[in-house]
């Protein structure tokens, strides 16, 4: 299937060795400089990141410790803080349900009265 090769050697850039070596040196110098600049930028970013990460970690630890030291409220205290009427709170925490009319009365109106 393959026909004979065509002589493309005039396109070979390395035929002129001196010129080719100059190109290699030029590319190498630019590549080395660019990579060193890039690595030094990354190094600076990492250097800044470390104290930032340390501060964030400290803040997180303080929050967790603070939350764990805060006394847990009982259910009754939670309902009282939420201003739920005491009768409803007692029924609810005891696992009972009050009749609807009583709930409505407690919540502040004689609903449903005709």
């Amino acid at each position, binding site marked *: *299937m*393959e026909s004979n090769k065509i002589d493309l050697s*005039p*396109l070979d*850039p390395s035929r*002129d060795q001196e010129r080719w070596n100059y190109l290699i040196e030029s*590319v190498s110098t*630019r*590549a080395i400089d660019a990579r060193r600049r890039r690595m030094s930028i990354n190094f600076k970013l990492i250097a800044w990141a470390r104290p930032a990460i340390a501060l964030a970690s400290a803040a997180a630890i303080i929050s967790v410790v603070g939350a764990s030291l805060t006394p847990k409220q009982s259910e009754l205290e939670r309902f009282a803080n939420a201003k739920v009427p005491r009768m409803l709170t007692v029924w609810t925490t005891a696992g009972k349900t009050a009749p609807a009319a009583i709930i409505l009365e407690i919540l502040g109106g004689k609903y449903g009265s005709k």
Partner: protein
Amino acid sequence: MLAVQEIESLIARVKRGESSAFSSLIRVHLRAAYLTALAIVGDPSDAEDVVQDAFVKAFERLESCREPRRFSGWLLRIVRNHAINWSKHRRFCEIGTRNVARVSENYPPKIADLKLRKRLIDSLAHLTPIEKEVVLLHDLEEWKHAEIGEALDISELMCRQHLFAARKKLRAQLNMEISQEVKKNGK
């Protein structure tokens, strides 16, 4: 082409900042990269500029080469994309080498080469970009079909087909040019 392990070792040394490893890695891959750029931009001096910028980009982001054993394909993709972008925006693109003397300014190509080179470049212009890449990498860089296929992300069979088509077109084009010259000289 170096063995895969040698290339992996060079890449590791480049990542550690060893200057000698840069030159070695560039020396191994520069010609293939240049030919890839030439296939797209169509001009040898422009191909030199494009390939310089592409290599700088590649070495800056060397960490993104996840598989060092596929470094050639990864590098040629960067060269190809850079050459395509350059071709699209050639009037507006700020090529980094404008701050650096072009190779062609310090080392102008020899006159004897220019005529032959121009003839081949004009003939290559009648090929598709992938045919150009395949014929240059195979016939000039002497890569195997498997290597070209992996670098260009095509099957070996497609590679052989492109090579066949490329050689046929080139031969037709070169024969036509020779006939035209003979006719011109015969008048």
